[in-house]
């Protein structure tokens, strides 16, 4: 009695197993009876979107597909190849061998335009549309620049693909000569139309095409030649805290000027904005093209401890 039961169980198990898996084989030919290789053969339940398994035809056009569904009588086979028309057939869910002919047809791929990307490039220049990167909390251009793909900011210094940028220009003019923190922290974001990264830029025109540069220059294209700037006034309670910043700037076609009057006693180190960033920061390659930059008229008072600072400066730059 016991032995009989045992045999029955084994029989059921084998039977169920051989049902669950069918193998569909076949051959794919073109209209001239030539075999087609690399056709994707996939199957799915009729009427569903998701395919369940796939394989590929080999050099002789043969394919072998294991079908692992048992709850349907027939399945849909899809044949996909870029150079042939798509073909779908319904076949019985049973082990069998088929042959199909695919019509040659160059498949049209739906293109996706780059307009969704707020970045475009022309030659060696990458343009970032400022408007698409601007969020509600972004006030000055520095807030935008640090969000751009490929760009990062460490302690106010700007890096492009891990390398410090070699120039920071506004409308093509390098006014601040390395002390670009002042523009970066004070130029309102909405005055800027786009930020451009000039890759492999050789700032010295005479050396262009002679000395290859792998560093980038950043340029801000303003919406118009304009006088702009930021003003900020903060006052605190006793004994008396203040934080004031008035930075008017003018960008004309050949004349640029930036004035900055900042004073605070809240511990904000304003001199950070005056730090020159162009000096060689590559580890071992001395790339020092470091100059003091434009002339500065400055008054600074620095007290230790709780800081109080005043700075007045007036760099300007004429482009003959």
């Amino acid at each position: 009695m016991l032995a009989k039961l045992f045999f029955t169980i084994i029989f059921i198990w084998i039977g169920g197993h051989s049902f669950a898996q069918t193998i569909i084989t076949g051959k794919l030919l073109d209209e001239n009876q030539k075999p087609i290789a690399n056709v994707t053969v996939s199957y799915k339940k009729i009427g569903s979107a998701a395919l369940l398994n796939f394989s590929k035809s080999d050099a002789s056009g043969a394919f072998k597909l294991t079908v692992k569904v048992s709850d349907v009588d027939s399945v849909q086979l899809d044949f996909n190849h870029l150079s042939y028309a798509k073909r779908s057939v319904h076949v019985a869910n049973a082990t069998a061998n088929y042959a199909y002919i695919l019509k040659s047809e160059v498949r049209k791929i739906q293109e996706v335009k780059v307009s969704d990307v707020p970045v475009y490039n022309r030659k060696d220049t990458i343009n970032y549309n400022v408007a698409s990167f601007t969020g509600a909390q972004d006030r000055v251009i520095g807030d935008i620049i640090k969000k751009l793909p490929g760009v990062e900011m460490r302690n106010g210094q700007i890096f492009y693909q891990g390398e410090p940028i070699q120039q920071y220009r506004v409308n093509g003019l390098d006014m601040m000569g390395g002390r670009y923190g002042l523009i970066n922290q004070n130029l309102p974001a909405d005055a800027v139309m786009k930020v451009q990264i000039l890759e492999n830029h050789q700032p010295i025109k005479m050396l262009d095409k002679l000395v290859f540069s792998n560093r980038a220059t950043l340029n801000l294209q303003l919406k118009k030649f304009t006088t702009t700037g930021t003003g900020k006034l903060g006052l605190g309670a006793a004994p008396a805290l203040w934080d004031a910043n008035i930075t008017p700037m003018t960008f004309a076609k050949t004349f640029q000027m930036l004035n900055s009057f900042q004073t605070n006693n809240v511990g904000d180190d304003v001199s950070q904005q005056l730090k020159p960033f162009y000096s060689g920061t590559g580890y071992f390659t001395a790339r020092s093209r470091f100059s003091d930059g434009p002339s500065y008229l400055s008054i600074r008072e620095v007290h230790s401890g709780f800081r109080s600072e005043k700075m007045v400066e007036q760099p300007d730059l004429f482009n003959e």
Partner: protein
Amino acid sequence: MKILFYPLFFLLFQFTVHAQVKPVAFDMKIMYKFTYQNDSTSSASRKSIFTQLTIGEQESHFQTLSKFRADSALALAHGSNMLFYSYGRIAPNNFLIIKREDIISTYDPMNGVGFSGNNELSYYEENKADMQWEIHPDTAHIHHFVCQKATTDWGGRKWIAWFTMDIPISDGPYKFCGLPGLVLSISDQDKYFIFDMVSISKVNSVSATFDQLRPDLIIQKTTKANFYKERQKLRDNMIEYALLTGAILSDESKINIRAEMKTDNNPIERH
């Protein structure tokens, strides 16, 4: 004499094929935004760059847009003989991945420096079949394309990919391939590395050959395991290498280099 000639010819032929002399014609370009985090301890280290997959009849090339641009500029300048060898941070994104038939070939400079300042290139091969995909019934729309989910356990990470049968090309960003349709989006489980399709366009372009970029290029064949091991060694001993090449380092920059090397602790493939 004739007998000698034939083997010689054969040898020469093999070498030139290896150095990729024939330019490859591409008819399709897919751009992906690549977001990566090379420091697993700091989410602030997340960066994103654009990468491109160019597909031709026989093979596809995958590289970062900045590498492609730097190479193109170099090719136009007919090669630069300027040579600097800086042991700075290893730029992990100077790779070129070529998928051809059943093989994935990776060309990647050990020290990460691009062609403009480096004439040594490591090269290793992998089999496409190493990447085993599991197909899931989940579907989603990316742009206008119906995509389906697939997962793979590969390179020490679990990857979740979305491919579309609307583009029956068995390819994708980075080394990913082998699905019945193009991979439009893929990320690892921890979201350290994300590739997202941003554009698909028809092109009519030709690749620059290594010869155009660097006639003096030395290609060193290695294995993937060895490549990652050597790169780790270089990363650990950056200062010693630099001193060997005659660099003079202040104590401050030594500290900086060590700190920076530590932040590079999360390569896309774990070995």
